[in-house]
């Protein structure tokens, strides 16, 4: 039922209530003011009598107080002049109320409310905006309110979700210029830059993570990213310490806890040489391709979900010259702590040669995608780049 109908129902119920009591007025209590004062005067006299019996007052005081009670009562009876109410016809008031109540309530409501039947706000619960619409709305809002840091952050997140990484970075930079001390912003910004940089922890993102941890040493997101950085430089001890700290900082009910526990277990397995759920990727690059590309070009090997978002689940990126013919993808290469490789049933394996190393496929990139593989089988995949 629409808003207007519900308001109508509320008004009709209210009017019916008023009309009912105008037609059938409530009975008066039947207590007469004079009678009430007389009864209270009588009670006072009784109390006075008790006081006398208990020797709380003497006879002289009793007589004086009795006189006062009598004179007070006489004064009150003189004052009391309750009007007799008559059962006059109240039909005219039914008409007046029937006209004025809706005018008053709707008029006041329309003046005070920011609700209009066609506004976005009123329909937000029934038809949520798409990500694109939300981003467009935010962009429009930010043109009028360029200092609204929360909206810049939301725009950055929206673009990230839409896989518009460069736009996302620009939005986060705007937010950063306004509030460089927000640890959550710093982490989100760093995370986006790392995504744009094919998960390489170099340069500014590392600085941003450091800044975030200086502001809040217990920020779980920043600790997680710092742990990822430690892994990228093969410092597993540091990674373990950072992730353990992140784990203790996460709420008990947090969904990220399980992922972090898994990644810590994986780290232990790596340290003990016992890795589970891996995808071994053999890549054969033809001579023709090798001669056409620079040894400095990047070879990006990653797993992505068989269905859903195209973002990598786990990735390794290295220059062609450093490639030995095989890489092993595991949870250690996972991009997001809450979406580890081993948490996926199936995946597609992608191998790409890229000049720029950008996450986004460029026109001159060479790419090959595998068939769907079952992660639990620890598959071995061979892909040819011809």
């Amino acid at each position, binding site marked *: 039922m629409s*808003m207007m109908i*519900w308001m109508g129902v*509320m008004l009709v119920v209210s009017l019916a*209530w008023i009309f009912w*009591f*105008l037609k059938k*007025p*409530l*009975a*008066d*209590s*039947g*207590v*007469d*003011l004079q*009678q*009430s004062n007389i*009864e209270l005067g009588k*009670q*006072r006299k009784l*109390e006075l009598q008790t006081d006398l019996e*208990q020797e*709380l*007052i003497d006879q002289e*005081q009793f007589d004086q*107080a009795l006189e*006062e009670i009598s*004179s*007070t*009562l006489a004064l*009150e009876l003189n*004052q*009391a002049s*309750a*009007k*007799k*109410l*008559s*059962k*006059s016809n109240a039909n005219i008031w039914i008409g007046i*109320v029937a006209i004025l*109540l809706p005018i*008053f*309530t709707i008029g*006041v*409501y329309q003046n*005070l*409310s920011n*609700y209009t039947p066609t506004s976005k*706000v009123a329909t937000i619960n029934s038809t949520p905006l798409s990500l694109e619409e939300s981003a467009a709305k*935010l962009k429009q809002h930010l043109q009028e309110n360029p200092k609204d840091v*929360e909206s810049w952050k*939301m725009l950055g*997140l929206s673009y990230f979700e839409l896989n518009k990484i460069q736009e996302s970075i620009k939005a986060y930079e705007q937010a950063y210029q306004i509030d460089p001390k927000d640890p959550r912003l710093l982490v989100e910004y760093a995370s986006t830059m790392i995504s744009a940089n094919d998960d390489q922890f170099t340069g500014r993102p590392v600085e941003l993570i450091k800044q975030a941890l200086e502001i809040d040493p*217990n920020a779980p997101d920043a600790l997680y990213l710092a742990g990822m950085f430690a892994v990228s430089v093969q410092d597993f001890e540091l990674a373990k310490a950072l992730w353990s700290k992140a784990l*203790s*900082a*996460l*709420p*008990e009910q947090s969904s990220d806890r399980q992922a972090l526990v898994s990644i810590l277990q994986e780290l232990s397995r790596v340290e003990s040489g016992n890795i589970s759920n891996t995808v071994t990727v053999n890549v054969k690059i033809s001579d023709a391709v090798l001669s056409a590309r620079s040894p400095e070009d990047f070879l990006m090997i990653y797993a992505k979900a068989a269905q859903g978002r195209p973002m990598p689940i786990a990735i390794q990126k290295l220059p062609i010259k450093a490639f030995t013919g095989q890489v092993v993808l595991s949870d250690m290469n996972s991009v997001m702590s809450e979406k580890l490789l081993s948490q996926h049933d199936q995946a597609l394996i992608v191998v790409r040669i890229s000049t720029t190393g950008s996450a986004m496929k460029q026109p001159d990139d060479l790419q090959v995608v595998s068939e769907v593989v079952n992660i639990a089988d620890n598959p071995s995949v061979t892909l040819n780049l011809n």
Partner: protein
Amino acid sequence: MLVELGHFALVLSLAFACLQVILPTIGLLRSNLALAQLSRPMLWAQFFWIFVAFVVLMNAFVADDFSVKYVASNSNTELPDMFKMSAVWGAHEGSLLLWALILSGWSVAVSVFSKRLPGEVLNHILIILGLISIGFLLFLLLTSNPFERLDIIPVQGRELNPLLQDFGLIIHPPMLYMGYVGMAIPFAFVLSSLIRGQLDSTWLRWSRPWTLVAWAFLTFGITLGSWWAYYELGWGGWWFWDPVENASFMPWLVATALVHSLSVSEKRGAFKHWTVLLAIAGFSLSLLGTFLVRSGILTSVHSFAADPARGAFILVFLILVIGSSLALYAWRASLMRSSNSFSWLSKESGLLINNILLVAAMLSVFLGTLYPLLLDSLGLGKISVGAPYFDAVFVPIMIPAILVMVIAPFLRWKKDTLVRSAKLLSPVWLGVGVLFIASLFIVENTYVALAVFLFIWIMLHSLALLFNRVRQNGQLGLAFIGMILAHVGIAIFLLGATVTTQLGIEKDIKMDVNQPITVKGYQFVFKGVDSFSHENYQGHKGRVEAYYDGDLIASLNPEKRQYVTGMPMTEAAIDPSLARDLYVALGESLGGGAWSLRIYYKPLIRWIWLGGLFISLGALLAAFDRRYRLSVRRSKVGS
């Protein structure tokens, strides 16, 4: 859509409050039964729609509807459901909605339980209460709308102030508001009498139980606030003479005087001026207290000017309430001429002295609270008025009040003699003297000795009063038992407050792991600190073991929390008992496993709140005394 309907329900409640005032007024002026009798149905409808609005707002909190600005500003998804619900009154807009709901709830209670009131009187009272409701609903709708939507909806809301994420704060504001708002009832009774020009026995009699119930709630609310401040703020205090506390204490002092003044007016027809003025002052101070706390004027006087609409509304509303009440009082002053004289030595004199002292005490608090704000707002500089001022001014006023408090019930109405009074009281005073001298052998502190003297003074007088009453007629009415309980509550509070302030021991120290420290015979051993996390905060939990005579008596786990917004909070660990509290709060990490800790020994601190509970209970018992069940013969006419 539901939120918009909640907002519309609030508009409807305003419409019904207007109808509650306009139609019965016309009915009373034109002697039209149908219109005059509409006050109750209009009030019930007003209550219903405010209740609907309240439920809708609470639902928005529980459903994490961050499109509502008030919800987004005071709640987030990580907040436990219990605190999401209490977050409704966690800030200005919602607490005003609660104010309006409680006011209409009180009004409904008056309309339902005042069967002994003449219909005309009740209609007048409900019209006054309707006018107050209009003021608050307009304030809500025009300046403090809790249903305002946001154009840009945040993914996550802000944090409810961690200080408010506590059970004590779930019940403390509603209880305090019950007291604040309850003061509107005697105010409405008084105003309706002034308007009708009938300052008679009826309004005096039937406003008294409502005043007692409101006073009970106010006492309970303040007691809860003190208890919460003690365990939640982390430094073991129970009263800070903070302006927010003073804002609730001022109406309490006036309500205390009003309860006693009503007793004299009702029984002996005296003190009518006092009673009328105290009823007006009580409600005015309640309004002032609510607005001081909720307008932001107390945190910074400049926030008052920062929201001109809200500030202007507050001023206009206060001026209207106080100004119109005093104008009415001046107009009807001639009706209050009382010929009932009394001697300097009488029950009336005792109660009058106490009224004067209570009002003087209120004025001392009023001055200490508002003077710095006034200076600051006029740009005349900042001054700080704290405990030294209040201890120096307030306490000396209250000591004679306590002495007189228990003597007055022994005195006769109208006139007593020194000989009779001395004969009656000399055994009590002898007992007080003997016990006090005996106590001096164990009490060394002067202030504690004074508190012990006052404690013995109140207790022996109360016992003697009880003994006399039983000996004379054996009948103990609820009002009498209530009075004894309330006075004993004052004694308990007084001793607890003085002993804990004077003899409490506070140690702020650095402790290494396994390091022991002895405080008043209790050995505390610091066993280290663990990290932990919860739904919406993380933190450190200390482990401290307390031993007495080598036996482990308590394992204490003080917490240092960091909420998602970054706000730190200290949760003290307390081992409570009637004789003493052991209180441990975690400070900062000092490296190498060492931490700073605050270890307090608080003797008799529970007596402070026990005293408050006694006073509340006493007031409630007195409100249900047999004399308020007087049956008044009903006429057949008018129904």
